[in-house]
């Protein structure tokens, strides 16, 4: 059976960075995408993240997620203009609902923002081993049980992807049409995927505490690690650049740059 492990071993600059640097980058992506709500700016952030995905040679590993990311972006582009009212540049109306250029731009900005955020997280997982990530979190001062909780969740992602695909096959084999029909029948039929996935995942999570406790897991015990991580000069330089850019983005936002609607996130 195929394996759905996100990490892809490649010899790239991004892979070689310390996991703490990569975590900081993800935090920065969240800051950059959140402070701006203009599509040029959030689009630039997304462009940067996509470039990093390409440079880290992990794009193929994310093929399962492209459809979801594009759907997420489309939903945002369609829904936000309906709810984020305001703006002065009227561009037209559909079924009696009027749209302004600003609300459409805001929808686009949020779409870019969401995709950039999710993609940066996936970039982290495709270029960093879960064990390194766990170690990085403890080195950053996070209590071990919390770091372990995070790493357990990350470990479950490939398992869930594998389960999801198997469930999809199982339901299609019994005639459940998940990919076709009207939007309403698709939504109804998606329960056939979501419910078994939820139940399977819950059963797995239910067994996890028993499995780790039966092997003598003590949450607060002092630990040693086989793996070692080390911040090198290139990491410090990268962190410094990212920090400056994060500070700059906040400064720009406070001065009204990069926004369509100044009063909202």
């Amino acid at each position, binding site marked *: 059976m195929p394996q759905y492990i996100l990490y892809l071993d490649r010899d790239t600059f991004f892979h070689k960075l310390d996991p703490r640097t990569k975590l900081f980058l993800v935090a920065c992506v969240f800051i950059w995408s959140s402070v701006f709500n203009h599509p040029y700016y959030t689009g630039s952030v997304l462009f940067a993240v996509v470039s990093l995905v390409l440079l880290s040679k992990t794009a193929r590993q994310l093929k399962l997620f492209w459809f979801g990311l594009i759907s997420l972006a489309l939903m945002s582009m369609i829904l936000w203009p309906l709810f984020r009212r305001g703006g002065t540049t009227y561009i037209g109306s559909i079924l009696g609902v009027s749209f302004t250029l600003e609300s459409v731009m805001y929808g686009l900005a949020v779409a870019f923002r969401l995709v950039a955020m999710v993609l940066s997280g996936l970039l982290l997982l495709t270029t960093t081993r879960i064990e390194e990530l766990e170690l990085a979190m403890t080195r950053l001062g996070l209590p071990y049980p919390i770091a372990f909780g995070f790493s357990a969740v990350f470990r479950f992602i490939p398992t869930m992807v594998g389960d999801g695909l198997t469930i999809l096959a199982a*339901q299609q084999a*019994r*005639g*459940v049409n998940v990919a076709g029909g009207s939007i309403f029948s698709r939504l109804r039929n998606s*329960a056939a995927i979501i419910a078994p996935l939820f139940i399977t995942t819950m059963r797995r999570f239910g067994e996890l505490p028993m499995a780790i406790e039966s092997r003598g897991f003590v949450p607060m015990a002092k630990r040693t690690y086989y793996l070692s991580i080390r911040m090198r000069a290139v990491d410090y330089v990268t962190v410094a650049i990212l920090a400056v850019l994060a500070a700059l983005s906040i400064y720009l936002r406070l001065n009204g740059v990069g926004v369509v609607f100044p009063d909202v996130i």
Partner: protein
Amino acid sequence: MVLEGPAANVLSEVELLHSLGLHPPETAEIFSKMSLRGKPYPLDVDGAAELFPSIIKVTHPLAAGLEQGEPAVELEDVWFAYEPGQWVLNGINIKVMKGEMMALIGQNGSGKTTLAQIVAGILRPARGIVRVFGKDVTRQAVMVRGREVGYIFQNPDYQIFSNTVRDEIAYGLRAAGMSEYEVEKQVNTVSEMVGLKDLLDEDPFFLSKAERQRTAVASILALNPRVIILDEPTTGLSPGETTALMETVNKLNRAGTTIITITHDMWVVTKYCSRVVLMADGKIVMDGPTRQIFSNIRELEKYDIEVPQVVKLSNKLFGQTFLTVDEFVENVKIR
């Protein structure tokens, strides 16, 4: 606690173990059924062979041949790879005849599930042709194939999502546009067949693994497929639960349904299947009637197949292959 003591004593309580839904060692079962000596019974083949009486009369079991007639499933030079260049199936050629009950055995990673999923339409071969009842279905969508070929997964939780057993069984029928009257009728028939009649209004989430497995089986049976594939259906089930499930499957087979079952339980194979296909490294390495395949004990052991005790013992004592304890007891008489 029902019983406690040394393993030999506990495992010699054959009838009690059976009544608890457990599978005692076949050597102990043979000695018990033939009333050969007092307890404790031998638990291994060598011990049983040593203690077995020498004055015996053995009749030959009927040699069952393979099903003749038309193929239900036909694979012609089928190749498949999950990753480019890494072939998981290497040019498979096989015909499964109508009404056959075939076991697909082999080590993990030998390609059994991949082969079965290609038959069910879940995977599409990179090369080759798949025919179901003579029709080329190589590129057919899985949803369409599901009407002819039902696939029961190892983990029933992959299939179950409704709030009640009744709705779970009815889902595929409603999706196919059946009237509520017909749905109800079919749900009742199928639930009766798999022993779920009293659980129809229960939430499947709270049922035991065996009951959830039966629910998954029922939801596929309801669609009336002419071929059913069971992918390790007995994993996690007790021998008693396994027997109950396989008896249902056997009943369907006798009614004409073609069955392909993937399993690591060799006693299930020898008891229920008429044909065995052994796979290794994406190829079929042995294919034939169950008795013929299990007479090659050394060959099977090369592929880490755990040959049932009764097969080993009958070969060791008489150079013949008896597939089940009952067959052994029927054909071997002490003079």
